[in-house]
């Protein structure tokens, strides 16, 4: 099968700690893939390793047939990978508009995507002049996703989109992510299994730095034993 993103047996160290000890992630084009696992299992590090923010020492990361290992993070991102990090990482001192403009990869990206972004997140249009620090958690999460949509990204890496959000906002977020999936391939890290199971088509379970199981989400939903074993109570 042809994968848009093909991560094979990566090993990543942070300082002396061997955080990832062999992670495989195969992401078919046009799908939503969820990375599941307990806190500290290495899901976020996997995303950062794909992007080159914590470069893996071994293994290979292929994106659309091109090897990413050895490239600097900004070169990886420029190939068309958008990143929505944990805790959003909105630039507090920049206005909402500047937070979007800074993501331009080519001049005019923002002007071109404006209408699409505001149709997805109508609230942002109202907040456009506010500084990023003044937004609520949900608004920041929308802005973080919107920021990844400004350039033409083929792959979106989204880390914990539902974290700390009210249920109503989570609903909105899920609807937005579903709509995005029609345009781009998505890799999702999600603690909330309910959210993950409703969004993703495929999953990879990461346990203590290793990918231990992968498959179709509809099979996992019925596999109570696996859910209990790797993800705790579901």
């Amino acid at each position, binding site marked *: 099968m042809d994968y848009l993103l093909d991560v094979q047996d990566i090993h990543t160290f942070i300082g002396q700690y061997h955080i990832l000890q062999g992670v495989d992630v195969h992401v078919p084009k046009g799908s939503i893939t969820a990375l599941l696992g307990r806190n500290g299992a290495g899901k976020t590090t996997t995303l950062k390793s794909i*992007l080159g923010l914590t470069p893996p020492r071994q293994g290979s990361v292929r994106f659309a047939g091109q090897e990413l290992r*050895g490239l*600097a*993070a*900004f070169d990886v991102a420029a190939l068309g990978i958008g990143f929505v990090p944990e805790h959003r*990482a909105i*630039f507090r*001192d920049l206005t909402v508009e500047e937070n979007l403009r800074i993501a331009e*990869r080519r001049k005019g990206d923002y002007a071109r995507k404006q209408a699409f972004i505001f149709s997805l997140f109508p609230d942002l249009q109202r907040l456009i002049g506010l500084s990023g620090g003044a937004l609520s958690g949900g608004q920041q999460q929308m802005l973080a996703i919107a920021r990844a949509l400004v350039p033409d990204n083929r792959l979106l890496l989204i880390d914990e989109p539902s974290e700390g959000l009210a249920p109503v906002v989570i609903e909105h977020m899920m609807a937005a992510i579903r709509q995005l999936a029609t345009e781009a391939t998505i890799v999702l890290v999600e603690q909330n299994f309910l959210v993950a199971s409703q969004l993703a088509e495929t999953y990879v379970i990461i346990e203590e730095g290793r990918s231990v199981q992968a498959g179709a989400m509809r099979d996992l939903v019925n596999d109570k034993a696996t859910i209990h074993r790797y993800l705790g109570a579901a």
Partner: protein
Amino acid sequence: MNTFLRKNLLLLLTLAVLAGFLAAAGRNMETSDFVITLLRGFSVGALTFLVASGFSLIFGLLDVLNLAHGTLFMIGAYAGWTVYVRPDTFIDLVTPLALLVSGFTLADAWRHLAVRISMTGRGVAAWIGFGVAALLLAYILPRYPIAMWNVDDYAQSPVAYSLAASQGQVTPPPAATFTEIAPGVAVLGLLISSAFIAFGLAWLRSGGQAGRPLTWRSFTRVAMVLLVGLGALIFNDALTAWLFALNSNWLFAIAVAVSVATGVALGGLMEVTLIRPLYVRPIYQLMLTLGLSVIGTELVRAIWGRPEFTMPKPELFAGTGAGCPATTFGDWLTHHCSTVILFEGRVRVYNEIFIPLVGLVVLISIWILLKRSRLGMIIRAGVQDRQMVEALGINVRRVFTQVFALGVGLAALGGVLAAPSIGLSNTMGESFLLNALIALAIGGLTSYPGAALGSLLVGLLQQFIIKYGQIGIPIPFTEILFKPTPPIVPASTVLLMVIVLLIMPNGLLGKKE
């Protein structure tokens, strides 16, 4: 409005207290003294700001405490002096520098070539290239003719040349000529060694990665550099004579431009070669910049000598004849007086009006750069979260280099502006670096407006204390007239810093960490 008041209550209170002090100072002084002291405060504040703003930009984005900033300020002053008083030396230096740089402007092409010729043992080959280049340079550079002053001979020392220049006696020193080495050999040798070094570096670094597509830009760049270098060689005498005959205002403008360019080049070079490998080891970085500041000072001592000397002011600010000191702006425009009468006091135009004005212009320009340009946006974002900026596909490393170069360029601008006012000395950088650090602590380390406010406060406080050293402060309810002694001047700013930091640990405009 209310929330603004509540948030900034401490800041407003502090400013009110300071304004109170200032008003009290004004009441105990003649108006003319007060105005002059105020303007001098602005002047010192502006120079401090030029050091502090660059320092704070670099620290904010790169997390590098550049302790060499004061030395770079000083180097800016000496570079400016060289262009202004000894343009012949400057023109002589242009050729070898341009030839040495020429190889590096072809970096893109070398990278391409390096990927093509990826043979084994390229490390050895590259090092042989470096060796050949070093031998060539060791042969050529000592024999390359550069007309220079002589620090050991008073008649030809910088001090003597400065004196002559300030009296308007511009007698070009004898030009240096090619005697020990043929010009063709020198030019060719420099070109070859530059190419060897640049290609060797590209070769060592080519780790199997394909280079970027080759463009015409690198070739136009090398053509420009060669044009400048060879032009300066062929028309050396004509250019030197032209610069010596040039109106001193224009020459000063050129000196400022060259000085800033020197700062930008030094800053860029420093970041790329020395700072970059040490981002993961901040303590080493601190030691490195400290060491560089010492090396820089010793280099300046070796080249320009230890004695202090002055830099004559440009004509625009040096008039003394009839009609001076000027009383109106129109008078000043016609006579270009060095001093004007303001509130019945004599104010030096260059020191007390021109420098603060330049400081203000820089303040506003950098503010616009930060707020309106894409580079500014990236800087503001990068101060908060570098990784995220990189994750957006932005080459943060290049921005680091640009910011470092900009910061050092600002320091060099400060140095060359300060030179005609306070003179050149080996220690001029230290006091300004110290002032700048105190100003940043007062204003808030990574806050740009904080740097401006802190610098202004430091400048004003120092000048008022100096003034009170002359006229004395009457202590209320006693007959005592307290005259602050000179050591109190720097101590007072430290005291202000301590008080401000006790009340507001992040400085007046700093953000909470």
